[in-house]
């Protein structure tokens, strides 16, 4: 009898559990909610939620926002298991493009207000989200790459001027080197597997500005060999900036480049006397400038100029990146939210909080909180040839190989040919598996 008592005591609650859950399964769908997943956490999450607030207040639709720093793992698993969110914003559109090719995300052409979209965005932004003739991705906030930061006061003290052309920049760097100071600060460390990515930024900007959008597109698609003259030329141009053969133009030399974190890489600009005068990084770096030196003010203490055009016919070409929205599940609420997120009214909320730039033509330049982001927004609006960050579009294997190649190149520029040969091998297999 005792045995039965034990057995029953275990079975009854288990049964109860399964029955209640089983019943709950059928009745689903909270009317009027949208599930959104993205990488924005902490202060970014607070900013995004304040963007959603007016939408929730005016429509009554509840947005369930989830943030995760491991977006590709979570998204891949959920999509494969048949439990995707309604909308996702990914900083790496390659993943979303893959989903689009597999038919896991929905084409937006007849889902969102296209005439509004065309009014708000220049064609190059719409092209960025178009795959096989259909629109799959739209952008709310983006950032501009290839900004050269400099210490304004140190520049004035030495009466250096902002270079207008690439040749001017090369002249400037030898002028700085003549005074016994290294002209550049370059920092490629990021933490483990991501090491080297800031170097790939250099490379992309040079490829686009030197060889133009067609080569760039072929390079992204994997049909332009790494050992081809155009890509090799990009490496050697970068080598010219670093100091041919020996990285002697950079503070700390090749050891300094590979061992300095990108977060602190620009700080030697602000020592007295400066250890370097120029630093190439995307717009977010100002946060780290001010973290290290809280007294620094934009424009009076630090400012930037876009990487000068290398080939005149490709003037105004810039590499951009941003978080792309994709729709996994179509519902009236999801459409409404996506329409809202492509309006200037929504984007301007985060723009005012700082750190983000809106690609929307209707976003007033006055809404940028500081002159620096206003200036980069101006450049972004004027961009003639906008191309998405190349390595973010390449398959994961190709991307990591490219990052590693940047480290290898900086360590020993003489090995360029063997580095490019290795990249060609990766290119031959990486595109097949994805």
């Amino acid at each position, binding site marked *: 009898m005792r045995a039965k008592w034990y057995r029953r005591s275990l079975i009854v609650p288990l049964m109860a559990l399964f029955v209640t859950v089983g019943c709950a*399964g059928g009745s689903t769908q*909270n009317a009027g909610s949208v599930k959104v997943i993205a990488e924005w956490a902490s202060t970014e999450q607070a900013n995004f939620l304040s963007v959603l607030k007016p939408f929730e207040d005016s429509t009554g639709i509840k947005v369930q926002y989830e943030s995760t720093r491991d977006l590709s793992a979570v998204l891949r698993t959920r999509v494969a*298991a048949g439990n995707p969110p309604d909308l996702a914003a990914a900083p790496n559109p390659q993943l979303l493009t893959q989903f689009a090719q597999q038919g896991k995300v929905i084409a937006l052409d007849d889902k969102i207000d296209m005439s509004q979209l065309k009014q708000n965005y220049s064609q190059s932004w719409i092209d960025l989200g178009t795959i096989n003739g259909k629109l799959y991705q739209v952008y709310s906030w983006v950032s501009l790459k290839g900004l050269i930061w400099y210490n304004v006061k140190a520049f004035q003290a030495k009466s250096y001027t902002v270079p207008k052309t690439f040749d001017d920049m090369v002249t400037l760097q030898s002028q700085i080197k003549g005074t016994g100071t290294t002209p550049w600060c370059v920092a490629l460390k990021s933490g483990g597997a991501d090491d080297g990515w800031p170097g790939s930024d250099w490379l992309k900007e040079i490829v686009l500005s030197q060889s133009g959008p067609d080569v760039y597109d072929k390079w992204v698609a994997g049909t332009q060999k790494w050992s081809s003259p155009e890509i090799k030329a990009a490496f050697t141009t970068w080598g010219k900036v670093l100091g041919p053969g020996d990285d002697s133009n950079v503070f700390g030399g090749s050891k300094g480049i590979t061992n300095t974190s990108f977060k602190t890489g620009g700080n030697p600009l602000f020592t007295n006397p400066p250890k370097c005068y120029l630093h190439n990084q995307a717009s977010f770096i100002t946060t780290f400038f001010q973290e290290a030196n809280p007294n620094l003010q934009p424009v009076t203490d630090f400012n930037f100029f876009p990487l000068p055009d290398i080939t005149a016919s490709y003037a105004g070409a810039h590499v951009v990146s941003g978080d792309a929205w994709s729709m996994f599940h179509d519902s009236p609420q999801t459409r409404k939210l996506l329409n809202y997120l492509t309006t200037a009214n929504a984007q301007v909320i985060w723009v005012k909080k700082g750190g983000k730039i809106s690609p929307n033509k209707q976003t007033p330049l006055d809404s940028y909180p500081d002159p620096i982001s206003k200036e980069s927004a101006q450049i972004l609006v004027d961009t003639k040839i906008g191309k998405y960050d190349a390595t973010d579009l390449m398959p994961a294997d190709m991307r990591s190989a490219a990052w590693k190649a940047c480290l290898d190149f900086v360590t020993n520029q003489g090995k360029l040919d063997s580095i490019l040969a290795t990249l060609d091998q990766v290119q031959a297999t990486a595109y097949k598996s994805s």
Partner: protein
Amino acid sequence: MLEQSNLGQAFFNSFMIAIPATVLPVTIGAFAAYAFAWMNFPGRNYIFLALVGLLAVPLQLTFIPVLHFYVQNLHWTTDNLEATGIPGLPWVPLWLAHAGYGLPFSIYLLANFFRALPSDLFESAEIDGAGTLTVFFRLVMPLSVPAIASLVIFQFLWVWNDLLVALIYVGSSAEVAPMTVNLANLTTSLGAGSNLLTAAAFFSMIVPLIVFLSLQRYFVRGILAGSVKG
């Protein structure tokens, strides 16, 4: 700080996840281990071998099929489970998943421990008229407290510190996410905010410390001293 980043809620969630996810595999594991150690049934060794083999399966491999089963066959999405309004229900998939991941190890550990108990004990208990369950609850369990305590520590620490399994099965909405998920979200996508991370990580560390310190005396206690007389 506690209010602003939902740390209090996450702390509670972590307990709600870790306690059942420890109790379940340890309880089931103890029953199963006893059967493997002291009961005779056909194929016992082969089943045991298969279970030990499961130790080598990386749990990442199971995410997609298990989640697919939850979502497609049982309709156990966090939304559906929350909609029932029964507190604790959204964590059921996670509890079962953790139990599944923990079972091979707990059965393996306990079965080896149970096997080492002297067979005289079981014979004399049988002569005294004890049934299987009486032997289990009155004899095996009290004698195995050190092994069970160490297993509880292992399992609790693993579940408490787990980020990925929780992220996959319950997601990161504030109502259900544990401490680890919350901590990971304290930094922005560019790594700003790491100062908060160290403070919060210390907060999350306190619990495993307490668990370890309060159970560690069982590790050193004499195991079978004086249990078999004459």
